[in-house]
């Protein structure tokens, strides 16, 4: 699975949110998006998942343009896993139903098969005893891990993670990041927006710094974090360090 963004443009009511964003994510690569709030990270991820239509440019998945107007978005989304900052689990379903809903409805799996697969995944990530719990009964970290498992149950070819630890307290961040590390070890292609600079540095194959909807710098983490080529990147990282987040 290879994801390519070509000169993607997006604006909301005259305000430009993404301007000429071009970016490649190769198979089994992990690309981290960093930048201040409002720099366009979330919008970029939402555009890739076709939750927001783009104004101009193209988004290619394995050389096929998925941003083509009129294209049915559902089969595309079924191939892409997305995890949100606020978990967005379905509160009226228990963990198991949250996970099996899409495989049963979209992939037409049999209920029993979907359950077995879900239990496998839950077991792998230490959540087997939570299968019958409701989201409200779980901690934030557990909810976010379930949300990741829910996306994984669709056997996605790429995962989009939108600041998935931003709503968690520091103690719970670790368990979610550990899960992402495991995904990376398993060769999952990932595009993730994050405020955890240390984590980005550790896990990313390349890091993208966004500012006001533009990609200012795209480079391997060692370079971005030790000798950034642009003043804006340097200023941003200086602010991050000053706030104690790196």
């Amino acid at each position, binding site marked *: 699975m290879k994801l390519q963004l070509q000169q993607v443009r997006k604006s909301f009511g005259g305000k430009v949110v993404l301007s000429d964003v071009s970016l490649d994510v190769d198979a089994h690569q992990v690309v981290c998006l960093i930048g201040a709030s409002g720099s366009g990270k979330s919008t970029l991820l*939402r555009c890739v*998942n076709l*939750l927001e239509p783009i104004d101009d440019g193209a988004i290619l998945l394995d050389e096929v343009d998925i941003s083509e107007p009129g294209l049915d*978005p*559902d*089969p595309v*989304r*079924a*191939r*892409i896993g*997305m995890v*949100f900052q*606020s978990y*967005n*689990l*379905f*509160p*009226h379903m228990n963990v198991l139903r949250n996970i099996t*809903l*899409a495989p049963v*409805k*979209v992939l037409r799996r049999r209920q029993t098969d979907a359950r077995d697969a879900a239990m496998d995944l839950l077991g792998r990530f230490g959540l087997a005893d939570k299968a019958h719990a409701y989201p409200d009964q779980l901690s934030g970290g557990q909810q976010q891990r379930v*949300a990741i498992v*829910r*996306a994984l149950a*669709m056997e996605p070819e790429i995962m989009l993670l939108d600041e998935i630890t931003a709503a968690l307290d520091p103690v719970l961040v670790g368990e979610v990041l550990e899960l992402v590390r495991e995904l990376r070890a398993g060769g999952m292609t990932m595009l993730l927006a994050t405020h955890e600079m240390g984590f980005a540095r550790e896990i990313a194959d390349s890091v993208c710094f966004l500012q006001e909807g533009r990609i200012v710098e795209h480079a391997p983490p060692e370079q971005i974090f030790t000798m950034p080529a642009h003043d804006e990147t340097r200023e941003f990282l200086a602010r991050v360090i000053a706030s104690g987040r790196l």
Partner: protein
Amino acid sequence: MSDTAEGPGAAASVPSRGTATRRAQYERATRRRSTLVAATSTVVVVALVIVVVPLAPGWHNVRASFFDGHTFRQSFPKLLDPFLLNLKIFAICAPCIVALGMLIAMARNVRSPALFPLKLFATIYTDVVRGVPVILWITLIGFGVPGLFHERHWYTKAVVWGGAALVLCYSAYVAEVFRAGIESVHESQRAASRSLGLSSGQTMRSVVLPQAVRRVVPPLMNDMVSLQKDVALVSIIGPVEALRRANVLVQKSFNFTPLVAAAVLFLCVSIPLTRFTDHLLTRERRRTTGTAVA
């Protein structure tokens, strides 16, 4: 409220095992006081009603014509059968109202441009139906529609069209309740569902509607309580249900007590229904906010 202000009594505030803390004692005292106030004021008000109302110059006549024990005992059993008709109308109308209300709410929520006429129709329907008094709809439909047919069939009966009028009116109100519920489900739930590849229809059925329905159960029950009473309105076009029967008994006995007996019958159903609604409301509040605020 500084620590030093407590003086010699401060030592007593240290919680010790076995005895209640000062805070708990204070709260218990407050609780006891409010129970006492509530009980006293209830007794006073009830006593006043019992003492003051009979002092009115016409009380003797009113008691004889509204609260006559003999007439009550005679009329009450005669109202039971007609009241069964009320319950039947209610039992048939209620599910139809919920189903139709749901359909209209969904029609108002469609986003596809091809279905715009449906949306327009649903909007006009709720506006027009809610803009006319229920009693007027019952009269217009109950007398109007059977007039279309020359022969008498089961479907030309007034009670059928009276019920249909109730369904028409209440489904418009219920549709608004459902619509509010659908709109209260956060956009992020749709986003999560769509991002998993579910279509907009699947998202509606599996994610949005179940949450919406759960949230609107209490207001829906409110509508059902008022439907249960408004069934009596059907009496104006002919069917002999409890209210009409009570009116007939009033004419016969020259006494208004049968109406009071009918009121008692309605209360027998609506009070449990109301209490049940309150119970649901409290439970919902506790579930969504974590605690119930007095």
